[in-house]
């Protein structure tokens, strides 16, 4: 199962990223487990300096923005 992590301290964009990721993966019927990482030390541990960031199977795929639906699905398919 795909491990999805949304990195961010709870700002508006972080919530949007979570919604987008869920919507995209549900639509593509990819099985996943989503965790929110809000602790700053943990976020920094991924080497992320701009939130929100998306992590798929422990790999940072995007930082500082909310990627598009199709992009999330492509990344997910490459790793599922």
């Amino acid at each position, binding site marked *: 199962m795909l491990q999805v992590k949304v990195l*961010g*301290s*709870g*700002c508006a*964009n*972080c919530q949007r990223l979570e919604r987008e990721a869920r919507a995209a993966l549900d639509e593509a019927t990819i099985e996943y487990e989503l965790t929110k990482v809000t602790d*700053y*030390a943990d*976020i*920094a*541990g*991924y*080497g*992320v*300096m*701009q*939130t929100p960031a998306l992590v798929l199977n422990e*790999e*940072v795929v995007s930082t*500082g*923005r909310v990627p*598009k639906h199709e992009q999330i699905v492509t990344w997910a398919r490459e790793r599922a």
Partner: protein
Amino acid sequence: MSTQISHFLQPSSDRGAFALVGIIGAVGVVAYMNLKNIADWLTYTLMGLNPDSQFGEALNFFIYDVPKLLILLAGMIFLISVVHSFVDLERVREIVEKRGEGTGNVMAALFGAVTPFCSCSSVPLFIGFVGARIPLGITFSFLITSPMMNQVALVLLLGLFGWEIALLYLLSGITIGVVAGMILGRMKLERYVEDFVFNTPIPTTSESGEPVKISWRERFGGAWESTEEIVRRVWLYVIVGIGIGAFIHGFVPEDALSSVMGAGAWWSVPASVVLGIPLYSNAAGIIPIVSALLEKGAALGSALAFMMSVIALSLPEIIILRRVLKPRLLAIFVGVVALGILITGYAFNLLIG
């Protein structure tokens, strides 16, 4: 609607993307250049208002300024976002890492000026810099300049005050960032940073993979998205701000403010700074108001100090930074930045006011 537009804005080739951006840009420029005539025609010819009446003047100001600023905002943010697609924070960190005090501070402040980040990113950014053993002073140079050189603020300054003042604002902000960073760096404040910051292992670029190549089509697409997002977030503030500005423009007598916010009132600069701290997300709305105040006799230095304080020292950001800075360092940080703004305010009042 908006998804349709961004779909439409994703032509399949780079050439198509350039053509599309060119056409939209040209339409914007033509509209922008004719706005004054359109506003005059609407208010004075169509509605038959008297150009000398207070209401006519206020309405004309509003009808002219709202589309002018929104077009300018969308256009400039698009351009800035395209530039941003070339800036990578990890690269910035690598470049700054190799410099010492002085050059490092200048580089950090310059990068801070061109790199946008929302205040919720300031903490991960701080940890990312300090955890990578970048000196505290250099990190602060970045952290001070970045919010102050807010792209929305710069665009509004450009549109309402002209390029000279926008440039003055830019240069003062960078100077404050460099000098304040150097002072903070000399003060040996590392022990007032929360301990976990130094204990966080930071993966370097080589571990987190190679940067991907981005096509122009993707750069434009991304820039369009961020433009849409920012404009959607600030348009209401801009309109309300211009509305209040229009009211002041039409109804407040000339020079009404010279005694309160003029260069002669020594306390107007510190009062502006203190007043600016609790006001935050309204940066987009505050600048049109300030521009109207300036017209009514407020001094430029006091106005600049007010804007810098609103934008660089905000309560939400101070609260967020508390996560990584112990109260003492937080207070010193706010103090040094406030002092920098004060000096800038007085300097401009003295030079121009």
